[in-house]
């Protein structure tokens, strides 16, 4: 019973991180139809920027700077590269895969493969009975929940959020009412980069980071974006929480060696039942 509470909390934390990553995948795909395989590298960029800035300037300044760096990198990559591949899936795929390989090599060369730790939040709290949970993990749960709620709210209430949803819904219709699709794509990439950076910072707060940190989360981000029904925010959140909890429970109670398999099994099962994902309503169009 005690262990169950801890396991569920860890699952929620993991689910929160997957939500941040999956939202970026789903947003950029929804607006630009680019499946960005290099998306995970924004996590790594954010994580390293946070660790490096924290060492030089302190954690307080490092937070906004890491977001800025990752958002800025995403913006630059969109303007010089991704924007030109819109409408050509193969080009987008080739560009993002090339970018992924380049980034991985760049990080290994610049930061070496040795794990690095940033500022850690020390201490543990006792839950029920014997179970202890590091404070850092609780902080991460809090941060991801706040960021996801703020993002969801902004998507509903702000003009940029409306533009992102409208362009993701029907690009041609969006152009008929004067929505600038290319610029909205830039918003999508910047928001996705910043959300990935939040995930990167959170990861750096609880575990040492390596050049491969982003990549491992990217795959999960893809899984939740697809299960959620590409383009759906609620779907991504629900799928991410399902995956996080499934992994945590499976690791603890079934077989720890299969952690990475659970997500893909979940994806296969859900796609067999609902081929367009949980929350994909794109096919629904009343006549």
């Amino acid at each position, binding site marked *: 019973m005690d262990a169950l509470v801890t396991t569920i909390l860890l699952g929620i934390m993991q689910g929160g991180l997957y939500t941040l990553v999956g939202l970026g995948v789903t947003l950029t795909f929804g607006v630009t139809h680019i499946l960005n395989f290099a998306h995970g590298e924004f996590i790594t960029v954010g994580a390293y920027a946070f660790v490096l800035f924290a060492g030089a300037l302190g954690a307080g300044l490092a937070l906004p700077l890491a977001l800025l760096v990752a958002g800025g990198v995403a913006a630059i990559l969109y303007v010089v590269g991704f924007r030109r591949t819109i409408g050509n899936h193969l080009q987008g795929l080739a560009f993002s895969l090339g970018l992924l390989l380049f980034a991985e090599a760049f990080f290994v060369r610049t930061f070496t493969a040795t794990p690095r730790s940033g500022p850690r939040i020390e201490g543990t709290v006792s839950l029920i009975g014997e179970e202890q949970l590091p404070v850092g993990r609780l902080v991460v749960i809090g941060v991801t929940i706040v960021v996801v709620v703020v993002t969801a709210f902004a998507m509903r209430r702000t003009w940029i959020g409306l533009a992102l949803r409208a362009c993701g819904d029907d690009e041609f219709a969006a152009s*008929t009412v*004067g929505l600038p699709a290319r610029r909205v794509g830039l918003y999508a990439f910047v928001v996705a980069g910043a959300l990935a950076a939040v995930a990167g910072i959170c990861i750096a707060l609880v575990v040492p980071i390596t050049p491969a940190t982003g990549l491992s989360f990217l795959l999960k981000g893809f899984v939740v974006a697809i299960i959620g029904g590409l383009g759906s925010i609620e779907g991504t959140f629900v799928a991410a929480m399902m995956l996080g909890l499934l992994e945590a429970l499976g690791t603890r109670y079934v077989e720890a060696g299969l952690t990475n398999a659970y997500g893909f099994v979940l994806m296969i099962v859900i796609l067999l039942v609902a081929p367009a994902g949980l929350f994909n309503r794109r096919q629904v169009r009343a006549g």
Partner: protein
Amino acid sequence: MTAQLEVRDLAVRYGQALAVRGVSFGIERGETLAVVGANGGGKSSLGKAVARLVGSTGDVLLDGTPVPRTAVAAVGAGVVYVPEGRMVFTQLSVADNLRAGAFSVRRKHDWEARRATLYERLPRLAERASVRAGLLSGGEQQLLAIGRALMAFPSVLVLDEPSLGLSPSAVVTVTDFLREIQQEYDMTVLLLEQNAAFAAKLARRALVLELGVVREVVDAATLAEPAPVPADAESAERQ
């Protein structure tokens, strides 16, 4: 009197195919001009070219000034296109569909006031303001698509097949709504329509477009009689 919207020698080319070949016409302020003709005759391409949604050669002038060459800028200049097949944002609420229509004018005009007047005129949409647009009936979606375009404060409205796939009673509702708003907002309307009877209800003049060229300009009333184009074969097939 000079025309508010002046189209001169407009041509649209897709690769080797010429969809519109040198079309010229003018529309007076507040007038509705229908463009009729069979499917594939270039109506839609003509409308999209006027709204700058597809590339074209020739001139499109609004009050004597060229309409800018990008879709976003054309909306800003007051030329707004309502797509064939309605194309509402199915996953967005009715209210958000209308708000999205105002995106380009959000700092220039009182869009909330306009949305409120649209709701007064269309109580059915007002009731369903928070409903996803994909759940509306075809007629409601058409009204919403027109309403969304009105949110951009157009002076020229380009309507692409607004009666397509609608029930007869929905067609009547759409016709009435178009008449009212055209009066209220003093708009010039370019109506691309293969249902000649519907076109005759809204327009006084009609261009008959065939294979991308204007075959004749007729009194729209004459269209209402035996329909010169088979209107129903295609609309039935699209449903």
